[in-house]
């Protein structure tokens, strides 16, 4: 175990409605969906199935123009019932009516000891064809990894520090065997090391405790200490013309299952949390699950927002939406679409029940202490303005960079500046706290993604 990296900067958003650490049984949804929009960097997705096709779990359902060989696969077997398109016929979703007994595409199986000796090209080929490949996300740019490349190293964050995040101790319970197999496969993909960072503040999940063949690190400190981008910055920072891959622990497990069992098995345990949920807990389902069955009868009130992912980086999917590919959390919080009178609860009121990173006049949430759990809604609490406040973003980004300067460089479309100011080192999630705390309500993550898109096109 190497030294502990202690991060001071950051901010904990303590929300009400944390999932109780037990898995409850739920009725499985009938339909599942694959959303090309879940995969950053995939351009011009093209469907490979049509309505009425019967497919298996692991059958390719679409391809990206810039990832011709990568298979984006169906999470379950069943019948393709709908292909949803948006503007200019862009492919948005492929919906599948699931069979009651799942059938899987067959893949070659390995024994645990085989993986280390396998031919790395053959192994890679299997990962690319089977559907597990998109779990690998490259940095810079946080897009799906390109199988043609070879990364300098692979990084795994062993904890999620974001608000109401799922605990890997619950979601990955009993997956040690698969995780180990996945790690061994990853080691074949890089000449460098596979890094795993665990939290020094909380219990290390059993799934990580006996793993061999990895370089292990410990991080302490507030969110975003669990972000893989932040961890890379402190372990071995990215430089120009550099390439590393990242993968979430669940992705490693799916790779392990593929190799040991020969199946593309994306059954997962997810957290169902948020202040609008009556009984927040963990539940078992599959990637791309429709969420309405989980919600029904389990919400405090109907006027709420359903988010796939966490409240800082997630996406509002609506009550009949589908779980995102990378997400292991559904958060439900109240909508905030009401006006607030300025003296009572608006911009001049005394506010103790809405969290603030700041202490400007009337913002007294800091008096509540760190353990108070907040019930926050989706109101922006103000209007968008030019940058005025300085020095605040730096307090929540535990990296050696100047977020405001970077954002301004993106707005000015100044490529040299973007590069010099560190755009290669950040993804949306790393600056998500800036978006939360910003006085000027700047859409930080959107601007950053625009910058990343510009850099990728250049």
């Amino acid at each position, binding site marked *: 175990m190497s030294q502990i990296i202690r991060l001071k900067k950051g901010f904990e958003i303590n929300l009400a409605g944390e999932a109780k650490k037990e898995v409850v049984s739920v009725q499985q949804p009938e339909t599942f969906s694959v959303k090309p929009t879940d995969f950053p960097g995939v351009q011009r997705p093209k469907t490979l199935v049509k309505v009425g096709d019967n497919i298996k779990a692991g059958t390719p359902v679409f391809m990206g123009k810039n990832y011709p060989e990568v298979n984006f696969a169906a999470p379950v077997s069943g019948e393709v019932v709908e292909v949803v398109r948006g503007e200019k016929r862009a492919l948005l979703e492929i919906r599948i009516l699931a069979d009651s007994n799942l059938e899987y595409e067959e893949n070659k199986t390995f024994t645990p000891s085989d993986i280390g000796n396998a031919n790395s090209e053959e192994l890679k080929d299997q990962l690319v064809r089977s559907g597990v490949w998109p779990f690998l996300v490259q940095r810079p740019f946080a897009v799906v990894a390109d199988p043609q490349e070879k990364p300098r190293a692979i990084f795994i964050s062993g904890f999620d520090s974001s608000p109401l995040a799922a605990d890997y101790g619950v979601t990955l319970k009993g997956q040690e065997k698969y995780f180990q197999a996945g790690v061994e496969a990853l080691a074949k993909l890089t000449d460098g090391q596979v890094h795993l960072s665990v939290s020094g503040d909380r219990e290390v999940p059993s799934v990580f405790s006996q793993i061999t063949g990895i370089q292990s690190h410990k991080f302490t400190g507030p969110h975003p200490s669990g972000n893989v981008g932040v961890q890379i910055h402190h372990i071995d920072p990215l430089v120009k013309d550099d390439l590393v891959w990242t993968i979430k622990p669940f992705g490693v497990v799916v790779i392990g299952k593929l190799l040991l069992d020969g199946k593309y098995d994306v059954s997962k345990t997810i957290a169902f949390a948020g202040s609008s949920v009556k009984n927040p807990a963990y539940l078992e389902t599959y990637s791309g699950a429709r969420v309405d069955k989980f919600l029904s009868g389990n919400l405090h009130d109907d006027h709420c927002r359903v988010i796939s992912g966490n409240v800082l980086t997630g996406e509002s999917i609506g009550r009949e939406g589908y779980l995102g590919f990378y997400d292991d959390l559904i*958060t439900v919080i109240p909508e905030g679409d009401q*006006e607030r009178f300025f003296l009572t609860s608006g911009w*001049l009121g005394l506010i103790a029940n*809405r969290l603030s990173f700041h*202490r400007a006049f009337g913002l007294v*949430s800091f008096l509540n202490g760190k353990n108070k759990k907040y019930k926050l809604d989706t109101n922006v609490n103000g*209007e968008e303005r*030019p940058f005025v406040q300085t020095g605040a973003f730096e307090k929540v980004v535990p990296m050696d960079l100047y977020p405001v300067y970077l954002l301004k460089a993106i707005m000015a479309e100044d490529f040299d500046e973007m590069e010099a100011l560190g755009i290669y080192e950040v993804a949306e999630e790393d600056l998500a706290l800036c978006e*939360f705390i910003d006085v000027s309500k700047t*859409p930080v993550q959107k601007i950053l993604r625009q910058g990343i898109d510009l850099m990728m096109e250049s």
Partner: protein
Amino acid sequence: MKFLQDIFDKMEPNFEKGGKFEKFYPLWEAQRTFIFTPKITTPAKGAQIRDAIDLKRMMFTVVIAMIPCLLFGIWNTGHMHFLSAGQEASHLDKVIHGAILVIPIVLVSYIAGGLVEVAFSILRNHPVTEGFLVTGMLIPLVVPPTIPLWQVAVGTIFAVVLAKEIFGGVGMNVLNVALTARAFLFFAYPTEISGSEVWIATGEEVVQGYSGATALGIAAEFGTGENQVPVLEALANSFAPDLYSLKSMFIGTIPGSIGETSALMCILGAIVLLITGVGSWRIMLSMLVGGIVMGLILNLFGSNEFMKLPFYYHLVMGGFAFGLVFMATDPVTASQTNTGKWIYGFFCGFFALLIRVLNPAYPEGVMLAILLMNVFAPLIDYYIVDANKKRRLKRATV
């Protein structure tokens, strides 16, 4: 508040696209969002929740921090008036008399600047921003109580247009807007904002031996040039007892611009800004240090009586305290990086005293020092950020 919302909802269509008053939408929006924080929710992708703060609240925190200075300034304007006439007066009389002089200046500043803001918002079709909440209050506090109201209006309009709007409005300006207004008035109409006649709103009668000079004016007059006398002696020789004592200058019962005389009230404001974190402690501390360092250097050389004035007097004289708390800390025109803030603040204080003591033309140096450092702030930041870029580049080439 439902009835108010209903009224707003009923009127809203007139201001929306295609409505009768479509052009005035920014003005409409400004008042609605003033009374109600709007119902805008977060977009589908990205941060789904947001901090309780907004720019209105942040700006208003600064206004609150200035209220002690304003109230004291009102009282002191009346106090100086009755003192110059040699009359006894109750505190209430002083406040009433001061208010009659000061409130119109505040109103004119807000109305003139507000009109410019609204005009530009309508012309450029952007929302009315709240930056002027602060500027509109700063301007009255840095002018003398006797200033003609039309000059307040002209100065404010000049500053808002030339220092702010042509750069793109709030957040884009290089120079502090309130200081630009003051500098403009200072150079355009020097007789109404300098000398010894303007700082006290006297009546018909004045006491024998009356002089309305500021402490700095006296120091510059007697402490430099020919026939020097020690500044402290010159200050002791005032028309009212203890008028320029260290204690009076600290409390603020001295002639001067409306809101800047009291170091004590500035400290109260500083406490508000520091507790809320709205004002940068780095800038305040480093400007204080810069002033003290320059003061000590001047004391060390001591080639004239002004230079011999103990350095701590400078901290309570003139606009040093006010500039330190409210002007130098303006986040838009100050340095934006933490290291830059140290450098910027230090030189604000350093140059303030340098200009004050060694420049014969301007008895007050704080305004010009801060404006000068406003210009240098982007350059300071450039080098700080450049160092960050170089660290990144170095990693790449190792």
